[in-house]
């Protein structure tokens, strides 16, 4: 019992996820800085690794301003609701073994629901602050959500159809011979692009485009709420990458060596893959310019949705033809 509680709250549960959020933030800033010919965070901790934590703590002590027009109840509580989504979703990802902390038979559906829930909460809390900038941001946010959601879900569904399994655990277990990325490379690509839209990373940082609408839906937030919203974005980042690792890259699976504890090997493999996916997104986001909302919608509906549908059909045809074997 105590072990389960420790796993859920500390490692590899909530606190580990939050720590990974800070690590991702630091890596993101450091990679972007290196690519742009800068140094990046440097002073707080070795190579500035504690800078995200310092930023978080600093914001916690700042004054919180509530706009007079805002819907106060939602404005105060929605950040907490938003914070829950990626934290909860992370519990469905297997890290130390093949069994996640809170997995069940149809947990992919729960994850898809939590993704929709997060977008919904953001739209609500953006709308509750009732300023011109957040109003425009809400419109963009919702439009972006309806654009990226279909390709994102289709990419996940491809793996579900191939493995005939609706749980993350089952999908991971079925990849012991061949990772899904080799079966469905296009689904992986579509997932990464849709994930960047979900995380509002360039080129899809449209709902928070700072030169157009200040800070987008974050504009009116300050103090504690802002610090937690920023942290949630980073944790979503971790969760999005972790889901990509689980569905397409075989989760914590890898070659096993006798004598080394399996949990440790699983953890190392998982972390390497997670950081690789994270790094892919850091590089893409630094190398690209922001597109406009119409262009993003066009990309997702006209190109990525047909591509992901074609990927599904291709996988099904290959299974029917006996070339791919359902494991």
């Amino acid at each position: 019992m105590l072990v389960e509680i420790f796993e859920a709250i500390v490692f590899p549960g909530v606190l580990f996820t939050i720590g990974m959020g800070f690590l991702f933030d630091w890596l993101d800033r450091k990679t972007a800085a290196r690519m742009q010919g800068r140094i990046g965070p440097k002073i707080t901790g070795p190579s500035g690794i504690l800078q995200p934590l310092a930023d978080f703590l600093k914001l916690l002590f700042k004054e919180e301003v509530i706009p007079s027009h805002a819907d106060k109840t939602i404005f105060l509580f929605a950040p907490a609701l938003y914070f829950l989504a990626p934290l909860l979703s992370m519990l469905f990802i297997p890290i130390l073994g093949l069994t996640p902390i809170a997995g069940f038979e149809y947990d992919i559906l729960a994850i898809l629901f939590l993704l929709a829930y997060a977008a919904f909460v953001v739209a609500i809390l953006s709308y509750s602050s009732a300023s011109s900038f957040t109003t425009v941001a809400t419109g963009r946010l919702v439009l972006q959500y309806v654009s990226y959601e279909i390709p994102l879900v289709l990419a996940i569904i491809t793996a579900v159809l191939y493995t005939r399994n609706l749980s993350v655990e089952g999908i991971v277990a079925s990849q012991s011979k061949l990772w899904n990325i080799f079966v469905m490379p296009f689904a992986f690509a579509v997932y990464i692009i849709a994930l960047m839209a979900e995380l509002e990373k360039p080129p899809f940082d449209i709902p928070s485009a700072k030169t157009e609408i200040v800070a987008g839906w974050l504009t009116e937030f300050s103090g504690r709420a802002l610090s937690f919203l920023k942290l949630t974005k980073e944790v979503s980042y971790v969760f999005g990458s972790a889901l990509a690792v689980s569905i397409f890259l075989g989760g914590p699976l890898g070659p096993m060596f006798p004598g080394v504890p399996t949990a440790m090997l699983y953890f190392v493999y998982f972390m390497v893959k997670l950081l690789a996916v994270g790094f892919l997104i850091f590089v893409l986001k630094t190398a690209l310019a922001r597109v406009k909302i119409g262009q993003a919608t066009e990309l997702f509906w006209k190109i990525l949705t047909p591509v992901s549908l074609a990927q599904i059909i291709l996988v099904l045809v290959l299974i029917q033809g006996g070339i791919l074997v359902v494991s």
Partner: protein
Amino acid sequence: MSSEPTREESAGLMKYSVENLVPFGPIHPALKEPEYFKLVLEGERIVQVIPRIGYVHRGLEKAAETRPWVQNMYMFERTCGICSFVHSLCYGQAVEGLTMYEVPKRAKYIRLIIAELERIHSHLLWVGLMGHWAGFETLFMWVWRDRELVLDIVEAISGNRVHKSMNAFCGVRRDMPENMEDKIIEKMKYLAGRAQYYRGIIDTEETMLERTENIGRVSADTAEKLCAVGPMARYVGIQHDIRLNDPYAAYDEVPFSIVTRNDGDVLGLLRLRLDELIVSTELVSYAVKHLPDGPIRVKIPPIIPAGEHSAHCEAPRGEIFYYVKSTGGRTPDRVKSRQPTMANLPTALEILKGQTIADVPVVLTAIDPCFGCMDRMSFIDTETNHKWIWSGEQLRQYGINYYRKRRTKN
């Protein structure tokens, strides 16, 4: 309801509901200087833009009337923090027109070198900011690092990075440092290479193309009618460049060709400015190589003969214009200056119509705005938004009455 018109009514905004108005500025992350634009939206599309200028009016023209001729030169240099040298050059040329002294040839070449270095630095700054406004931070960081090279050269020549204070009447204050030729030519070559590289990025980078291609289209007729100057005129194919049309400094002695394009969109502006940058690097290299010997300055008396004269120069942003009037005293009687942003703003507002809100920073900054240079005094009642125009004489009378009233009150 009161019979007094509200602010929106008197500004002719009655037909738009308040929800459709998005304020752009005066304090906005996309604007480096405060200026206010009221955007009337239909969804994400802009149907009308109402500017309200005057937030950083500093009264330089009035201040010039109380300062000696020489001091004014360094004051006008502070009109702009980016194209500072060309302001003092233009003012200096207007004043030189009133005297009978000839500017030494070497000084003319040094003026050309500094002016072109300034153009390179200004264009690089703009290309970087364009990347920033289009959400392409990496381009911003790279371009601004290269800009440091130009600033270093300027510092080596003049001792300052931004406000060079190089100009004097009929000459320049400092000579070129010795043994710098090779270094400058080498750095110019490097910069031309970098500019080519950035042209490549802009021509091929899909996300950047999507943000700039076909954005901010304007026809040559419209641009000409709205009196666009500088790059804003050249990117629709109008041959408008004071360096060529009415050469000053040493521009009539060095070989160069101006760049014009027929794109008429923001992408065209990016290409045009980078091409111009390459021409400028060649100009600097040529001028450094062919620098004539001789004095750099002629001393002139502090009193300028009576008369009036005007001069215009090609600043990085377009044509600037200075008019001076002297009554033979130690201070000017009147100085009038016109900055390129003022001339280009009508065109910018015209091309904003029909764009989406995401294009506003890109289009508005495509003209390379410098609102601090541009701001003029206008009469506006902030309560009723009523605007009116006064002649210089009326304004003078108002000032006399105002101070008379104040004196009697005390």
